[in-house]
């Protein structure tokens, strides 16, 4: 698979270094044939060359956090026997137990890059800037969809809380920025004004639910410069995007995550679960090295684990989760696993984890917060510990999670 349109440019904002086709070729030469490539994916020209090279020569590439301890991945999935359709392997986010890999075919990756480029109307004139790690499915999809259309991607590593990022956005006439909910909270704190970045026209949002107030706020801010906010919905298992809310319908469909991408469709199962059908659905998970040889087990159908409803025009509204999942700063976590590892009752808030600890003192609560956030590998401000005298119970004797959520 060649994702790199001949007109696409990748520029490192700090060094000025530019990606060339010969760099990709050289990286491909170096890789040669073999099994999976384990790529701790930093936001650098050389890592992008390696990523594109692996896709080009058809070696499945595992995208890893460059700051993580990655030796166990290479050990667990060491094999030369890989399925010919397999192109990309992404970790399921979260720190729980034994994380799996999501197996994506070249066809699914390419299909999703096209779908995204279509709905966001990405052209060769677009300039994106890195705002998210590239090993994270959202960051990766920004890269893929822009490279495919011959657009420009600016590599920036400091992020939105630093001067260098905003200087690069102006200097390179950035047209598009992608953020997850907590970054929108930060942008509000920074009194983000799109008029300061004359070329900026598109903000995209994924990685969990953004509260309606911020959706309206940022749509309004972008409207003042003739730009738009695109609310999107996806999962790593869908390579990753499934839906986008057309900006023209945003006000009227507030709270919706939008319409299925072109070529995809949603159905609601009898139990209320959102089921996605589309060309971008994964081949399946991988738990062991032997799984990398497996073919497609999904047949283009993904049970999302989310509960939702479709309105008469096909706009999807997510109403809850079947699995007890939460998100902290965009990272998916299994609430049951939190409860297995700590003496707490866990519920999900907007991009935060709240745990209730019976009769905890202030010191115990602080200690729990540190331990849980370390276990999750997240900043401690994403975890809230509340002391509670007794848990609300359902008539069945089970914990009444809805009551706990309502108390947040």
């Amino acid at each position, binding site marked *: 698979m060649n994702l790199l349109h001949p007109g696409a440019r990748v520029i490192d904002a700090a060094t000025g270094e530019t990606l060339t086709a010969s760099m990709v070729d050289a990286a491909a030469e170096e890789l040669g044939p073999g099994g999976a490539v384990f790529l701790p994916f930093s936001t650098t020209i050389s890592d992008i060359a390696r990523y594109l090279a692996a896709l080009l020569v058809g070696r499945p590439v595992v995208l890893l956090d460059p*700051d993580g301890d990655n030796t166990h991945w290479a050990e667990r999935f060491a094999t030369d026997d890989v399925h010919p359709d397999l192109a990309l392997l992404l970790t399921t986010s979260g720190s729980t137990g034994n994380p799996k890999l999501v197996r994506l075919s070249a066809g699914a990756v390419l299909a999703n890059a096209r779908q995204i480029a279509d709905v966001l109307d990405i052209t060769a004139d677009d300039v994106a800037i890195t705002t998210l790690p590239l090993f994270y499915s959202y960051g990766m999809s920004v890269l893929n969809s822009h490279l495919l259309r011959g657009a420009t991607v600016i590599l920036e590593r*400091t992020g939105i*809380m630093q*001067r260098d990022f*905003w200087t690069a956005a102006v200097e390179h006439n950035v047209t598009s920025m992608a953020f997850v909910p907590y970054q929108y*909270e930060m942008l509000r704190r920074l009194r983000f004004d799109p008029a300061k970045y004359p070329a900026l026209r598109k903000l995209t949002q994924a990685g969990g639910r953004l509260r309606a107030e911020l959706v309206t706020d940022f749509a309004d801010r972008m409207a003042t410069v003739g730009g738009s906010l695109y609310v999107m919905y996806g999962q790593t298992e869908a390579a990753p995007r499934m839906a986008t809310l057309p900006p023209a319908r945003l006000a009227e469909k507030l709270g919706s995550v939008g319409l299925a991408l072109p070529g995809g469709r949603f159905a609601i199962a009898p139990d209320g679960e959102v089921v996605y059908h589309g060309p971008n659905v994964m081949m399946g998970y991988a738990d062991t090295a032997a799984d990398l040889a497996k073919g497609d087990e999904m047949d283009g159908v993904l049970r999302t684990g989310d509960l939702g409803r479709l309105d008469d025009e096909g706009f999807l509204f997510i109403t809850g989760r079947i699995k007890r999942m939460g998100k902290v700063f965009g990272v998916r976590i299994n609430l049951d696993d939190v409860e297995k590892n700590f003496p707490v009752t866990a519920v999900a808030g907007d991009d935060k984890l709240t745990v209730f600890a019976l009769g905890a003192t202030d010191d115990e609560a602080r200690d729990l917060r*540190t331990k849980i956030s370390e276990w999750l590998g997240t*900043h401690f401000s994403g975890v809230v510990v509340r002391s509670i005298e007794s848990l609300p119970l359902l008539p069945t004797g089970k914990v009444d999670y809805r009551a706990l959520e309502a108390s947040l």
Partner: protein
Amino acid sequence: MTELQRLREAFRAALDLPADAPVDDLQYQDNEKWDSLAHMSLIATIEDEFSVMIDTDDVINLSSFAEAVRILGKYGVANLERLDGNE
């Protein structure tokens, strides 16, 4: 506690560092705990501690402990100029 000590404490609290951790030479992103999330928390902690409202430009310029000292000076927080003091 002096203003300088209060600022050091604010850094340790926001970056979740031990009570005796040296902070005077800290730079954004060179300590793994000082990422964009911690930065938000740091700004909020400094604002609370010194009862100031930090401007957007200063939020994104605050890239080191030394820079925090300089910025707080602008907001009228005195007694921060001596960086050589030990606790």
